[in-house]
């Protein structure tokens, strides 16, 4: 009796790495790092990229040594693991670098006055404590609000068509929305230029908003479809069973349940277009002072403000451009987190 209880097998997880293996991996990483550091010091390989390259080379060597006695399958697996981690690091490093540089360089150029002053009496070369992007932020906000007001209803209608009405053109509509999301932003700007700007004979914030709306529509429509798809069919059946017609079911049962999802849709749409520069270069141009009237001629916006500063290229102008980039990134970040927050509420 005691014997059988003694041999009761403990559950083991042979596929998990043992502590010894983990330590060995860590050690070989550290040794590779040190070796490649020495190689970089001795040879002429310069910079972060040189170090990374040597490090991957040395890691391959380390893996080759460690798996020398294993069979070919395990050796291949180990090599591929190193290779995949290396490409992943290479793939993620640009945007990590972007996040880092925008935050560091942006904070250096950011002053409180950047958020509410304009460039009306300031040249880009002046001290950073003078002037700001207030006019650009206001301009961007106005254009984005107008663009949302246009695209949200259209996006919802298209979502409702794809999930509720399900007419004959369902496939076509979905296909067109998908391919429209790839229309180059400059083409959208050119279209509004050849139509709206030519007809009204003036560049304006309204023209910019229309161009942004074209780019926003696919995002909003697709997200709206995604959220509407999540509504359980039971709700629809229950509504029909109570004698409601399709229009009542859609408008009073289905749509109210996805109110927050539709908010998410419009937020994601705004995040998609807030940084668009190219279409605004052809439609709203730029201006150094506040413009509150959407039809009041050329209007400043955050992207065109940064773009203009980049072309001036002096030191303070570049600093201002980084600050503008930081504000843009913060806006995108805030939009994204609020979309996630609101979207998360929906599922509960």
């Amino acid at each position, binding site marked *: 009796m005691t014997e059988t209880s003694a041999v009761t097998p403990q559950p083991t997880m042979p596929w998990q790495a043992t502590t010894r293996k983990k330590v060995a991996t860590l050690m070989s990483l550290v040794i590779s790092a040190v070796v490649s550091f020495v190689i970089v010091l001795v040879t002429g390989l310069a910079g972060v990229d040189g170090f990374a390259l040597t490090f991957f080379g040395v890691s391959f060597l380390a893996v080759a040594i460690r798996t020398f006695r294993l069979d070919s399958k395990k050796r291949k697996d180990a090599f591929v693991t190193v290779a995949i981690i290396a490409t992943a690091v290479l*793939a993620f490093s640009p945007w990590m670098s972007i996040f880092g540089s925008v935050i560091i360089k942006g904070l250096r150029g950011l002053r409180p006055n950047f958020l509410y002053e304009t460039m009306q009496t300031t040249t880009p070369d002046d001290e950073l404590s003078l002037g700001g992007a207030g006019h650009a932020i206001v301009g961007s906000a106005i254009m984005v609000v107008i663009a949302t007001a246009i695209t949200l209803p259209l996006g919802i209608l298209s979502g409702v068509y794809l999930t509720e009405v399900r007419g004959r053109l369902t496939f076509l509509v979905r296909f067109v929305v998908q391919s429209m999301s*790839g229309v180059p932003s*400059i083409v959208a700007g*050119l279209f509004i230029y050849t139509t709206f700007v030519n007809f009204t004979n003036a560049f304006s914030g309204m023209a910019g908003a229309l161009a942004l709306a074209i780019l926003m529509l696919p995002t909003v429509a697709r997200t709206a479809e995604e959220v509407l798809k999540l509504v359980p069919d039971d709700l629809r059946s229950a509504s029909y069973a109570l004698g409601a*017609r399709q229009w009542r079911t859609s408008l009073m049962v289905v749509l109210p349940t996805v109110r927050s999802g539709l908010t998410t849709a419009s937020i994601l749409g705004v995040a998609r277009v807030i940084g668009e520069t190219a279409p605004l270069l052809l439609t709203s141009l730029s201006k150094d002072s506040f413009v509150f009237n959407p039809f009041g001629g050329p209007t400043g916006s955050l992207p065109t403000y940064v773009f203009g500063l*980049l072309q001036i290229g002096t030191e303070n102008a570049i600093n201002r451009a980084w600050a503008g980039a930081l504000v843009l990134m913060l806006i995108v970040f805030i939009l994204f987190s609020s979309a996630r927050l609101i979207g998360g509420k929906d599922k509960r």
Partner: protein
Amino acid sequence: MSSVSATAQTPEPRELSIIYNRADRVFRRIVTTGALTSLILLGLIGMFLFVRSAQIFNDRGLKFLTGANWTAGSGDGVIPDDFSIGPMLTGTILVAFIALLIAMPLAIGGALYIEFYAAKGVRKVLTTLLDLAAAIPSLIFGLWGVAIFTEFGERWSTLLNSRLGWVPFIKVQNELFGRSPFVAGCVLASLIVPIITSVSREVFSRTPRDLIDTCYALGGSRWGAIRTVVLPFGKSGVIGGAMLGLGRALGETVAVYLLLNLVFRYNFRILESEGGNIASLIATKFGEATEYELKALVAAGFVLFLLTLVVNMVAASIVQRSTVRK
């Protein structure tokens, strides 16, 4: 016997017919009209761009696509207008393909890493960051390219030129290296990597878990499972994602404008600091264009529109097919 008769008595589901009353029909018509706006809009974009630039296609015909000059005439007819987009068309394709070539392995490696190698916590963080990275405006990529990446790009170019100078595409005439198709292509690659990665990761995550487990149970390694199950399963999705990225790279304006010297000459030497693409041509020439030149720019935009539309339609059909199946 009794059980057979019991099943036989199970009533067939009643045939349901839907009768829409007047209110329903009005509702459906309104929704349909709204949903068709995107279709109409797409048609209008193509139509207006074509109508506004018809004169150019009429005047120049196919030479608009193949000619290598963009010269504004003197107005009195001494120097005639000569607008064509040959070098920009090839430049667009060249830069986009460099970007795609660099981005593809990185994106696939990144997606495999997130889905199959990263620890659970790391995976969550990376997926969130990936969404955010896909939303970084291209203007910021351009700024980063000018201020930070150019240094690396020039160093790599120097290295490539000195070691692989005998390859025709790599040899340069002026050893300047900055603002070349290669540098612009690298920045475009980092711009489309998040897009391709998130599509690929999405497809990889749909691989049936039991197929992967079967592979492990048969003694396969992780790479074995990826090679024999995950990659074949996700192939069409990855291709669709790559096409989406290609479409984005073909139409990119600001990043290319900031990172590539616009020179109107056919150039296939990727390290030479000259090139351009249609979108950046439009952004560059728009400000001080004459009326006839504007029409030529609209014509260039129309060509770009058709090019990206074809790429995106192929991408849309591939992505749709690969997501519908599962």
